[in-house]
């Protein structure tokens, strides 16, 4: 086995591969197929709610938001950038935390904040974001939850969503199309 020869052949494959449409298909098709499946299964448009924050001070809330699994948090430098992000749908909701927000709420001062909401945001996303903001502000002010919640999973075995079940098929197609590229060269 001469590694130099293997290297030369490999270089040739990489050099000539991209000129072939099968190569393009091998790269593009798995992406297209996975996109089609997620669109057909309706999972593409159902991501976690996205919250945008413009922190004018240095609020602990930002870190607390980022630790939440139920939402995705993005930080913006200014309120204008945040508003633009909401308008474009990059985030479902955006809030501006004024300077000294944490100390004010801890002192029990009533603060008014505006939640900019994207018009196309789903009702469930709005409610999740709304209650998450409220919950974390309560946590920040030291309010104790009035209930204990116990989570119980029903069913003995973990069932796998269809989008995950189809993953091996997509991987298989990627390998198959990659193999076609190799065959085309020979």
């Amino acid at each position, binding site marked *: 086995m001469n590694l130099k020869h293997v290297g030369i052949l490999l270089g040739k494959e990489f050099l000539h591969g991209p000129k*072939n*449409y099968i190569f*393009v298909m091998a790269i*593009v098709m798995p992406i297209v197929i996975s996109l*089609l499946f997620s*669109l*057909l299964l*309706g999972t*593409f448009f159902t991501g976690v*709610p996205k919250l945008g924050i413009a922190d004018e001070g240095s609020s602990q809330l930002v870190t607390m938001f980022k630790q*939440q*699994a*139920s*939402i995705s948090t993005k930080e913006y430098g200014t309120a204008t950038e945040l*508003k633009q992000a909401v308008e*474009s*749908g*990059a*985030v479902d909701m955006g809030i501006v935390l004024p300077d000294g927000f944490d100390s004010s*709420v801890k002192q029990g*001062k*009533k*603060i*008014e*904040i*505006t939640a*900019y*909401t*994207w*018009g*196309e945001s*789903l*009702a*469930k*996303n*709005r*409610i*999740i974001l*709304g*209650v*998450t*903001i*409220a*919950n974390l*502000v*309560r946590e920040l002010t030291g309010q104790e*939850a*009035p*209930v*204990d*919640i*116990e*989570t*119980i*999973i*029903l*069913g003995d*075995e*973990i*069932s796998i969503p269809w989008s995950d079940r189809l993953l091996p098929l997509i991987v298989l197609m990627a390998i198959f199309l990659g193999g076609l590229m190799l065959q085309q060269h020979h």
Partner: protein
Amino acid sequence: MNRRIIGALIGKDLSLFFRNRFFALMTFLGLIFYLVFYFLMPSSVDETLKVGLYAPVMPPGFEQIWEEGLEIEVVETEEALKEAVTEGQYIAGVVFPADMMEKFMSGQKPKINLYFAADTPAEIKDAITTVIRELAYLQTGQALAIEVSEEILGPDMLGMQIPPRDRLRPLLAVLLIIFETLGLANLITEEVERGTIQALLVTPMSINHLFVAKGVTGVSLAFGQGIVFMAIAGGMSRQPLIILTALLLGGVLATGAGFLIASLGKDFMTVLAWGILVFIILAIPSVGIILPGAVTGWVKAIPSYYLIDTVYQAASFGAGWGEIWQNLLILLGFDIALVWIGIMALGRKAR
């Protein structure tokens, strides 16, 4: 301009186009595939969190704190609730203890059980837990240190969300149009390759006749497919005239791009290589519809943005001439520029 010559050339072009099995098949199969794909996609948007509740004693005023987006259905027994959650009828099942109010009164913490199906994603579990906890805060009358006022940016689509398939409908129509770029480019390249164009140019036919015929063929194929798709998928119900105008301009755009690709291509394979590149570039603005906010202002430099945005705004939101005339004007400008560049490049090659 001799109409008879142009008519004969269009007839020849259409016949040659459908003689190529790949493009003939792709034209019909593509249309059928997009239509099947459209009708298989979800036709509605479920924007509520549907939760089942078993409460032996319903806390007073609890129904009044339910918010829009949260649908709570009361179930008669805990067993029925568990069964409904397992069957996927509810995203979660909530069980309030019988002594909940007494515990609240005595300052104790009642225990709430939350049932989830095994395949419920972690983020949904967290979200529902947060929702229930917040409902408990509200139930016990604990004040929040902030007052949140809501400002909606853009048209408020609450309760009338665009289903995923309708969101993608304009996009699929535009992709069909863009794909025709490849067919037209291949048609021209084949003629250059076989010397048909040079042979035609020694007849009374002028180069202008040739471009007009190719242009009409390209626009007809692209525009025709776009209309058929939109009509079958129900995309003509709102602002049909605007959509027709946009699709027509889209057809011209595809034709201009086809001329340009044909001037670069030498055979079927090079047409396909350049065509896929152009197809990908022209399809980029659609990412903005599939993933809102994913693309920034630079996407407006791509001509197809004005086509995709116009069809989307008109078909999904009923945007009128006053709102999208600028889009159409810019698209027309791009069309003229692209067709002119394509004709210049192709003319040089044909001569």
